[in-house]
């Protein structure tokens, strides 16, 4: 509530300021929107960076404890400064471009990857009505998300092709195949949620899960179980994490599409990848776990919704990390047949079930 009210208050004050200066109303609205976008983008970058830093540290700690060791311990108390120091190290490293590499593609690849990951944060609802790109979200929220996540494929292909390395190329092509294949089950699962909420806006989807209690969240409705399962499996494929981390496939392709990258460009790939994990966990939270809604129901007006959002997304992030360090990796053809032969038909089935459920007035 606090965040929402503050946000709306600032927005209205700014609009008032512009109309006070004699701007027509719709111009004031537009200028306010642009200012909100700019400030919001800066905040989003900040959140992304902090998220990536925290996530990398968490991953290494979680990995350590799963593997009966401690993880980073020396840099700062219990290793807290490890990622920051890693980022500094990456920044001061020499930027190596392989001989014969396509310089433009080599440079644009990571930049595009980072930009595209950043774009997706525009429609994340932090609290009731607190969205950076409100206009985008109100009209095409889910569609925008899917479109943007499709563009990461281009960035990866750029990285792989521009490296002048056959192994990177194999990794990039695998990534392209994988991400494209898993977009479809993801989209079908999302469509189920959109059908139930009757809106493409992420804010409205969370609003549709508002009810008396925890049980009105999407995950607790039986016809949402199949879409949730599909989305979670597709989620692993979209962020290229085990068991679907073929694009990276450390033991086969050394680093896949980011083998030949060092320094800042690698940092861009790396940080965007981890920010993606958080982003997609937030998307799952918004779609199925009630977003910023408190599990205690409307009586809870003390804890800001954004904290609940991060708490729930955090659990999912832990789950992603847990699975990564446990399961082996699937082979590309097995991964593709899983997607096309199992998940896509399951997605259509889920869509049918949801349609029936919605028609029956649920």
């Amino acid at each position, binding site marked *: 509530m606090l965040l929402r009210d503050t946000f709306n208050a600032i927005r209205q004050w700014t609009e008032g300021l512009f109309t006070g200066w004699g701007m027509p109303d719709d111009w004031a609205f537009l200028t306010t929107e642009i200012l909100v976008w700019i400030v919001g983008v800066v905040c989003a970058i900040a959140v992304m960076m902090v998220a990536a830093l925290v996530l990398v540290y968490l991953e290494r700690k979680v*990995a350590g404890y*799963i*593997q*009966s*060791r401690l993880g980073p311990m020396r840099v700062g108390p219990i290793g807290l400064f490890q990622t920051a120091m890693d980022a500094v190290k990456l920044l001061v490293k020499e930027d190596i471009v392989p001989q014969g590499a396509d310089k433009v593609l080599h440079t644009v690849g990571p930049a595009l990857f980072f930009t595209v990951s950043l774009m997706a944060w525009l429609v994340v609802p932090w609290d009731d009505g607190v969205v950076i790109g409100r206009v985008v979200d109100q009209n095409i929220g889910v569609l925008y998300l899917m479109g943007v996540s499709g563009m990461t494929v281009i960035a990866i292909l750029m990285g792989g092709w521009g490296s002048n390395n*056959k*192994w990177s190329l*194999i990794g990039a092509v*695998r990534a392209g195949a994988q991400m494209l294949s898993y977009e479809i089950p993801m989209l079908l699962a999302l469509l189920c949620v959109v059908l139930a909420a009757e809106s493409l806006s992420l804010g409205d989807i969370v609003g549709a899960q508002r009810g008396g209690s925890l049980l009105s969240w999407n995950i607790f409705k039986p016809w949402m179980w199949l879409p949730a399962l599909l989305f979670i499996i597709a989620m692993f494929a979209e962020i290229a994490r*085990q*068991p679907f*981390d*073929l694009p990276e*496939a*450390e*033991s*086969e392709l*050394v680093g896949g599409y980011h083998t030949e990258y060092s320094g800042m460009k690698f940092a861009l790939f790396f940080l965007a990848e981890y920010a993606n994990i958080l982003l997609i966990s937030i998307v799952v939270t918004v779609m199925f776990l009630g977003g910023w809604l408190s599990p205690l129901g409307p009586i809870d007006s003390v804890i800001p919704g954004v904290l609940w959002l991060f708490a729930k997304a955090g659990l999912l992030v832990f789950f992603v990390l847990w699975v990564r*360090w*446990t*399961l*082996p*990796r*699937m*082979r*590309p*053809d*097995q991964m593709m047949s899983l997607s096309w032969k199992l998940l896509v038909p399951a997605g259509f089935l889920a869509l049918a079930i949801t349609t029936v459920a919605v028609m029956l007035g649920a």
Partner: protein
Amino acid sequence: MSDTYAGQTDELLINMGPQHPSTHGVLRVLLRLDGEIVLDADPDIGYLHSSLEKIGEAKTWQQFVPYTDRFDYLSAINNEFAFVRAVEKLLGVRVTERCEYIRVIMAELQRIASHLMYFTSMGLDTGAVTVYLHCFRDRERLIDLFEDATGQRLLYHYLRIGGVRNDLPHDFVARVRDFIDYFPARLQEYDNLLTRNRVFRGRMEGIATISREEAVRHGMSGPCLRACGVDHDLRKIIGYSVYPQFEFEVPVYDTCDAMARHLVRCDEMVQSLRILKQATDKLPDGETNVKVPRVIKPEPGAVYERIEGPRGEVGCYLISDGSDKPLRMRWRPPSYFNLQPLPQLMRGGYVADTVVAIASLDIMLGDIDK
């Protein structure tokens, strides 16, 4: 013009170079790929060649024992075992009963350590990184045992001509028994993490197959051969050292694929525990070493002594000309012959299967390149 070019694909010649995270050492494999399918594979070895056999001609018999460790450096005791038995055969020396028991205990502990290393690399190559650290945690216990007995963690120089370097520490047997009690639960854990894992089985079942006839023709041995349905274990067939006194089974599977090799190694660890239990129970007292002259000059002759190492048949062919140095020291490495059918294993599979094929053979480049 345009429609002869459209849709035309080319083969990709790619180098799975000597520096690669998954080639188990410095092995180079030239792959011809059609997309993701391997058309042909050409292994290229020699990157780790250290002229150990030539060195064997320049060192005295005792001086060469530490070099044998370095052939298959993950199962050092078994290498020493082959060489030391060969020299003892040339000399006509019989070691004491206690020494044989100690040698068998060490060899079986080493077999478990080597198979744990196989688990490590198999897990890493298929993407299950956690298995690596869990196996190393258990391997540390074994290495601690070795360190207490021999003073070294990896390359022991423990077995000597005529005996062993020193007797076992007084608490060694108790600690081995502790390990025997502790380990089966761990094996169950690895079972759950790897062998029963659906994703892992999908990566291993039906992959990298070789027919039984081909395996025998290439001279494969060890778990690779026993996974093709051939019941061939030198511990049973020759019954060298004191192995005939122990009751144990030889696991044989007949699906000839990577999963069968994996299962053979899992079961072998269980059987090694059995042998260890019997050996530690029956360990006789007495002297560990026999008197062997300071300067060893065996009668002219040739001997080929072979033992069952974790990777297969380890053989040592020695020719003596009566002097204090071997005339010829020839090592029969199990990994060299296991590696031969690699093109057949990889052909028709995917790129992702190449690493599984190499890992399932459990080769050791030190052995291959000598």
